[in-house]
């Protein structure tokens, strides 16, 4: 009877705080809250979905799922196959990822980093509203893992290891798609990058830029107008790069979907998702954090180097597929930016200060198997 009383009391606390999980747990369970350790000066306040508070057990389960090829139809590919940590969770320098059937996709794999602060959707076209939903899409994509969620659920339910891990994280061994998505969401939310040289120089003031990096920072943050004379008295033709409008703030991204003047774009991007022709050829503005490690660049991976990217933004963009009259900031850039070779190199040097070695090597994000 005493045991029954204890179980009833434990059960009551679980029922009472039902926000912890949606599913009714099989057995009493307790979890340990996950806490973040990044410097609050460097990044915005933590932002976690109310329906999926982070627990150490949930994060660990998500990490297992992320690295487990059990999610693919032939058990050869995991999430990590196309999102490799040392490449800031992009696909090993590949332009497009190849799925288990040998089919190649049409967009470059995006970096998984600082996901909790994204607003207005995920993926290049914003077609997913939440990480827990995003996490399941590649599983069923025929060009990626080409598995069904039903099969994944069945496989995981047959696994004693996952039965146990789901019980620890969500209090139930009845594994379903909702908690698979939530576990992956929890792990991806922990993937925070906030310890680059930029952070240590600009935010924490514990290091200093080189002269070249500082010049690059000025170019990055100045609008497309002549650079002040102190910076370059010999060459009044030099201009600011105007990068910060779209890659601003400490996250170096924006909530906006933008056209960036690329020629020969056939992918409608955001416009294909929401059906608004004004959003044709617009794509999510990606973060520049760890940009040195995420080549190739653009939604279609057309540029192999940062130098090529900079050169694109210095081009006249007269062959842009999108109407840049609808993107006033890009149009202004097209009209007026000029950078000397020295300033191009400085801009690239500044971009490389966004590399965060802690993020690229943090064991907490690595393969747990």
């Amino acid at each position, binding site marked *: 009877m005493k045991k029954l009383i204890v179980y009833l009391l434990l059960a*009551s606390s679980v029922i009472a705080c039902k926000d912890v999980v949606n599913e009714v747990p099989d057995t009493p369970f307790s979890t340990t809250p996950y806490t973040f350790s990044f410097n609050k000066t460097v990044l915005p306040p933590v932002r976690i979905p109310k329906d999926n508070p982070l627990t150490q057990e949930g994060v660990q389960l998500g990490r297992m799922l992320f690295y487990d090829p059990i999610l693919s139809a032939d058990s050869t590919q995991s999430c990590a196959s196309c999102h490799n940590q040392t490449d800031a969770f992009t696909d090993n320098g590949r332009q497009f990822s190849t799925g288990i059937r040998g089919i190649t996709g049409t967009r470059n794999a995006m970096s998984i980093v600082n996901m909790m602060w994204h607003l207005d959707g995920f993926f290049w076209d914003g077609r997913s509203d939440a990480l827990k939903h995003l996490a399941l899409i590649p599983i069923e994509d025929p060009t990626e893992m080409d598995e069904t969620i039903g099969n994944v659920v069945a496989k995981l339910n047959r696994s004693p290891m996952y039965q146990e891990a789901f019980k620890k994280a969500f209090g139930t061994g009845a594994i379903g798609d909702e908690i698979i998505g939530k576990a992956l969401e929890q792990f991806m939310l922990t993937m925070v990058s906030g310890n680059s040289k930029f952070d240590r120089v600009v935010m924490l003031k514990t290091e200093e830029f080189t002269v070249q990096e500082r010049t690059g920072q000025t170019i990055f943050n100045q609008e497309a107008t002549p650079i002040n004379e102190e910076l370059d008295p010999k060459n009044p033709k030099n201009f600011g790069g105007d990068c910060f409008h779209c890659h601003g703030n400490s996250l170096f*991204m924006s909530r906006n979907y933008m056209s960036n003047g690329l020629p020969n774009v056939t992918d409608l991007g955001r416009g294909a998702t929401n059906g608004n022709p004004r959003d044709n050829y617009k794509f999510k503005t990606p973060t520049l954090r760890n940009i040195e490690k995420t080549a190739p660049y653009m939604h279609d991976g057309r540029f192999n180097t940062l130098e090529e990217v900079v050169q694109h933004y210095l081009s006249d963009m007269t062959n842009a597929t999108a109407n840049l009259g609808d993107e006033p900031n890009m149009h202004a850039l097209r009209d007026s930016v000029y950078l000397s070779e020295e300033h191009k190199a400085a801009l690239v040097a500044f971009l490389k200060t966004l590399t965060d070695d802690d993020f690229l090597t943090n064991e907490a994000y690595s393969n747990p198997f």
Partner: protein
Amino acid sequence: MKNLLYLLLGLLLIAVSSCDDDDIPVIPDPTEQTTGNLTITMNHVYGSSDMHYNQTVNLPSTEQVEFKRLYYLLSDFYLRNEAGTKVVLPKQYALIEDHNDKVSFTLTDIPFGTYSAIGFSIGLDSVTNHGNPNQYETSHPLSPINNSLHWNWEGGYIFTAIEGKVIPSNETFVFHLAGVQHKLDYELKVQLTCSTTPQYATITYDVKEVFQNPEIYTIAEDGTSSHSTTSPVVIKLINNMGNIMTGITVKK
């Protein structure tokens, strides 16, 4: 044993009811309330017409343009009571994105009373303008990821962004106004009583006035962009913007 079961049932009931904060909104006892709310909607017009985006509009200079975006930040709200004293509403901000139909916000913690005017600013004070933007949740009006108006660590926030293109040349204009010295203060006379009943007001912002009064702005002559805080372009626009708030109505 029966008593023990009753005790357990009681504990269960307490536990269930104790964590229901999210499900049952707490309705304050009106007799204990001392402050109320005012929801404001910014109604953007262009002269005698509604404000439109992606449609051809004639500027006062007779140039034709299409507006694409209008963003701005509001702060320093206060109400003036009948004695003429300012009742300040500190640390309340609003991000307006008219082109995205984000035009309403709610001021809270307004002491009960009768007021004769409302005041506010476009822009921010110096401390707020240069504070670390990482202090704000991403949904906060001053979060750079939310408003796309932060000038990184160089110059604080862009207070107003007006962007579009000239017809038929397709040349774009980008007016980004910033700098604490260009914070614009407004006070609008209005009879308003704050009580337990939430109040609603509509403020009219005439975008046409940005380009006239006292001086007509001509894109071909004055330029397509404003980039420094001291350029004649900026001064002209800022001077014109003193007249943009053309009215306020309170929902009865």
